[in-house]
């Protein structure tokens, strides 16, 4: 039985090779259809996986509250001596950790920009005043030295943890650990270097910028809560106690409830909406939904191109049936059953479409590699997209081969033998 199928396939290939150019051109539709499907899906998958990674790194159990400067007129109403007051308060952190259930950790962060120096090198750092728990919520690989400890916090030690990018720009290496970094007019001891996140995706994570972490109390005492900004010739003073609060929830199923509770609570104590609650889990869900939509759209486009390929195959097979009417007549006269004629022609179309699918898969794997190489876009070729394309191209052979094959089988053998 298997040898018969093998023999049929061999015969099919032989017949198709009789018209090499024709078979090749017929197959092109499927080749490009399958190739573009895989390539498109891989680009989409690459992009979404990057975004998802970004979100996931924020932690799906975490909720991030960010200070947002209210719109100008709202701010003007609350202006105290030309100073805009907004953002999260130290009290908010207390209230969150004391009153909201399911919250396991609350991590405040204060952001200050300072020109910083290591030796001769200078860059603007974003100094993040925070507590050691930060490093538990947002896990960072330690490249050198150590991260911030509770003792640093308790003793208000002027220590600083650099991120990889910042360290590189400041030419800080392992040897820098223990040495001093000057931020504005203050000196800190560099105690460690952690890995930074790669930039990209739509989500703003604190370490997208060049960060340096110092204990919160130190930041508060050295830099104060007032920030003076020079923007377009006018000086603007802002009073912001905390720029970010990260909230860790005990279980992923409670994230949404906690987010709602946070919003209710903050609304009560903040007269204006000067904060934004980011729920990575919600973003994750949204990103996944977007990805699904994207895949459906791509799938439909792919479906259309494969449909065109299938029609091409059907067209050629119909021509082939007409051309080989006499062969069909001879086979029927010799004693081939209708079903055997159907089988013969179906195998030919399936061979065509499968070969097309395989070439298309090669093309579909090659193209994303080139895209990544030349355009620098991340691409991910998933196994399921390969399996799907191969499956679809084989089914195209069956679907579009069935009609020509039936036509061949239903020819009257007498007529077929008489056909010129």
């Amino acid at each position, binding site marked *: 039985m298997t040898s018969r199928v093998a023999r049929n396939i061999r015969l099919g290939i032989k017949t198709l090779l009789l018209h090499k150019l024709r078979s090749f051109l017929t197959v092109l539709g499927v080749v490009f259809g399958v190739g573009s499907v895989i390539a498109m899906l891989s680009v989409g998958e690459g992009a979404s996986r990057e975004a998802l990674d970004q979100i996931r790194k924020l932690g799906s159990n975490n909720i991030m509250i960010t200070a947002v400067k209210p719109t100008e007129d709202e701010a003007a109403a609350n202006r105290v001596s030309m100073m805009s007051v907004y953002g999260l308060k130290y009290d908010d952190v207390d209230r969150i950790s004391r009153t909201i259930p399911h919250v396991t950790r609350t991590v405040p962060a204060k952001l200050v920009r300072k020109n910083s120096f290591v030796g001769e090198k200078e860059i603007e750092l974003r100094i993040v005043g925070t507590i050691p728990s930060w490093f538990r919520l947002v896990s960072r690989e330690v490249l050198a030295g150590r991260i911030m400890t509770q003792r640093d916090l308790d003793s208000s030690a002027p220590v600083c943890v650099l991120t990889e990018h910042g360290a590189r720009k400041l030419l800080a290496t392992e040897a820098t650990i223990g040495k001093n970094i000057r931020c504005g007019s203050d000196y800190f001891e560099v105690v460690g270097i952690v890995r930074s996140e790669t930039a990209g995706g739509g989500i703003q994570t604190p370490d997208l910028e060049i960060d340096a972490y110092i204990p919160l109390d130190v930041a508060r005492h050295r830099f104060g809560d007032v920030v003076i900004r020079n923007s377009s010739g006018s000086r603007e003073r802002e009073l912001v106690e905390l720029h970010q609060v990260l909230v860790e929830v005990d279980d992923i199923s409670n994230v949404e409830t906690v987010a709602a509770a946070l919003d209710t609570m903050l609304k009560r104590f903040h007269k204006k909406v000067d904060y934004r609650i980011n729920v990575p889990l919600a973003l994750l869900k949204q990103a996944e939904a977007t990805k699904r939509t994207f895949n459906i759209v791509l799938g439909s486009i792919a479906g259309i191109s494969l449909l065109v390929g299938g029609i091409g195959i059907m067209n050629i097979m119909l021509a082939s049936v007409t051309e080989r009417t006499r062969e069909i007549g001879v086979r029927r006269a010799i*004693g081939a059953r209708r079903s055997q004629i159907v089988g013969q022609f179906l195998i030919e179309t399936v061979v065509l479409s499968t070969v097309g699918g395989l070439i298309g898969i090669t093309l579909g794997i090659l193209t994303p590699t080139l895209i990544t190489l030349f355009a620098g876009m991340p691409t991910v070729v998933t196994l399921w997209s390969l399996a799907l394309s191969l499956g679809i191209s084989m089914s195209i052979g069956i679907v579009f081969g069935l009609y020509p094959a039936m036509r061949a089988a239903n020819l009257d053998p007498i007529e077929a033998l008489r056909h010129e």
Partner: protein
Amino acid sequence: MSEAVHGEQGNGAIVRLDGVHKVYHMGTQEVHALAGVTLSFPKGSFNAIMGPSGSGKSTMLNLLGCLDRPTRGSYTLNGHDVSLLDDNALSALRLRELGFIFQSFNLIPQLTVRENIEMPLYYLGWEADESGRRSTELAELVGLGDRLGHRPAELSGGQQQRVAVARALANDPAVLLADEPTGNLDSATGQQIMELLSELNGRGRTIIMVTHETHIASYSRRRIHMLDGRIESDEEIRQ
């Protein structure tokens, strides 16, 4: 219809037609391609069916070849009542009991000589090594033992017809049907093919041949002349 089956047992006829009519409808007109033919062909006979075009000899051959069924009357082939069979059963009957030789050889161009000869065996479900032995044997029988790997296009007309004869013999058929087997050949080659068929008949093969050429028909032992769907004459020739 069943009498035909009983009658067949007596005289060793391998093919028996009894009151066979074949009616075609051309628009509103009825065309009687066969108008009551009663004939029987004994085992091992060499028969020629002759007649002008439109006499019904092609229809006759199609019926004998189980490619068609009679409108009325009965046809019994090697004990099988053909008139009652469906398409699949007719295919099976052709596969087991019949061998076809066509005027234009009708070899499959993409297949080699060996594969052409083995085609009936393929549909019979023979194993590859068995059919390989059989096709070698048959190719040697028709004098083409050295051409098994060639394509039909690489052979002369006479050689192609020899391949077709070998293919027709592959299933060891009860009846060999030949439709103008020399029609596309020059007379010398045609003669060789006829000698091959005579030789096969000499070994006991039943042959029914349609031709309009008298000198081709002269190889047969019995000549049946047809006219307007009827048997006009039926003569045995003693040599």
